[in-house]
C-alpha cells in the first residue's frame, strides 16, 4: 500500500520496526519506517483496543504513538530516524514504572 516515490532519496538508514530491519532514507520519520514495514498496526488504543497506524504524519492525530528506543507514547511522525533505532509496537496503555 505504501511505496516510496520513484524520485525518493536512497534508503540508507537501517532501523528496527517491531524487531524487523527496515531501510529508510535519511531524514525520514519513524512513522514512515512503520508504514514501509507494512505492519497491520503500530498500536492498539488503551480503552477500546482499536488498531492504529500513522495517519496525519504531521504531529496532530497521535495515531502513530509508538515505543521508540524504549520510550513509550512517542509521536513516531515527529521523530527522525537514526541508524539502529528501535521502533516497537504498543499494546494498550503504556506502563508507568515505579
Amino acid at each position, binding site marked *: 500500500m505504501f511505496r516510496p516515490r520513484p524520485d525518493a532519496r536512497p534508503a540508507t538508514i537501517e532501523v528496527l520496526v517491531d524487531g524487523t530491519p527496515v531501510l529508510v532514507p535519511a531524514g525520514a520519520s519513524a512513522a514512515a519506517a512503520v508504514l514501509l514495514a507494512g505492519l497491520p498496526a503500530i498500536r492498539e488504543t*488503551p*480503552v477500546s483496543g482499536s488498531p492504529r497506524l500513522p495517519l496525519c504524519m504531521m504531529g496532530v492525530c497521535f495515531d502513530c504513538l509508538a515505543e521508540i528506543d524504549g520510550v513509550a507514547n512517542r509521536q513516531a511522525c515527529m521523530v527522525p530516524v537514526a541508524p539502529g533505532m528501535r521502533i516497537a509496537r504498543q499494546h494498550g*496503555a*503504556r506502563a*508507568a514504572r515505579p
Partner: protein
Amino acid sequence: MTARDAIVVGGGLVGAAIAHGLRGQGLDTVLLDEGDVAFRASRGNFGLVWVQSKGFGAPWYQQWTRGSAGEWPALAADLAARTGIDTALQQPGGVHLCLSEAEFDDRAARMARMQAEAGNHGFDHRMIRRGELDDMLPGLGPSVVGASFTPYDGHASPLALLQALHRAFTEAGGAYIPNAKVTGGSAAPHDFRVETAAGAFTAPRIVLAAGLGNADLAPVFGLNTPVRPQRGQILVTERAGTILPMPTTTIRQTGEGTIMLGDSMEEAGFDTRQAPPVMAQIAQRAALCFPWIAELNIVRAWSALRVMAPDGLPIYDQSDRFPGAFTANCHSGVTLAGAHARLLAPMIAAGALDPVLAPFTAKRFDVQTAA
C-alpha cells in the same frame, strides 16, 4: 408559558442530581441550563467522592458528606440500570499523603479532632507510617513520611455522572431546556415564575442550583447565597496501565488510565486562565509523592471555578418569605451527588428541609454581619 411541579435552575451536577431526584419523586420537573457560556464547574471537577477532609469543625458537614458517599453505590447502580452509563465509581478508601513530619503531626491532630467531633457517629481513620504505606501504594517518593486513611473515600467520573444524570432525568420524562439563562423572575409563596431566553416557566417549587449564578438569583426568590469563585487547576497525564489502587487527596487514576493531578485554591475572581507557576507546583508535589509520575506526559490541563461560601461549607435553604423556593450550593458536586439525588430531593418534594440541614442555612452569615 408552561406550568410544572418544580423548576430547577442550573444544569450542572448539583441541579441535575436534584432534578433527577425530584423526577424520581414523581414531580413534573423542568431543568433550566444556561448554556456553554456558563462557568460549568461540573466540567472541571476533579472527580473525588471524598469524605476524610470534609467537615473539620463542622461535624454536620462530615455527616452529610459521609451520608452522600454511602448513597453513591445505589445512585451509580440506579444510573447504570437506567442509562447503561458506568460512572466509574470506586470506593476503596483514600489517603492524604504527608510530605514531612510536621504535615504528618498536623494531619494526625486534625483527624483526631474530627473523630472527637463525630461523637457517636464515629470516624474510622488511621494514621499510616511509611513502612505500611509502601505495601499500599507503588513507588512513593523519599519525602513521603506517612498518610491518613479513611475507608469512606473514593472517586468517579464527573463527566459520566453528569451525562448519566441528564439522560436518566430526560428518559424518565423530565424536561431539560438548554440555553435557558434566567433573565427575570417573580416570587410569591408556592408560586414562582422565571423568564428565560427559551420561554417562561411557572411552578409551586423552585430550586436554585446555578452555581456562581446563585449569588444574583437568590434575592429575587427571598434567599441569600453569598458564593464566590475560587479557581482550581488540574493536570492530566497520558493513559497508563492501572497502577494506583486508591485515590489520594490530589492524585487519582481514572478508570481509563489517565492520572489526574490537582489541585490549587486561588482567589482570582472570575478569571479562568492558567499560568505556569501554579501548574509547576501541582506537578512538583505530584512528583514528590510518586517520582515515576514525572515520566508520564501531560496531555491536558484546565482550570475551573469552585462555588465557595464564605466558610467553605455548602448552603442549603428554603426561603422564609417565599416557601417553596430552595437553594443548593457547594463545591463538591460529585461527592454530594448521592445526597442531592437521594436525600435532598425527597425533602424538597415533601416541602421542608430536614433538621439535619439546618446548620447549612445562609443565616449563619447574618451573625457576623450584625457584629
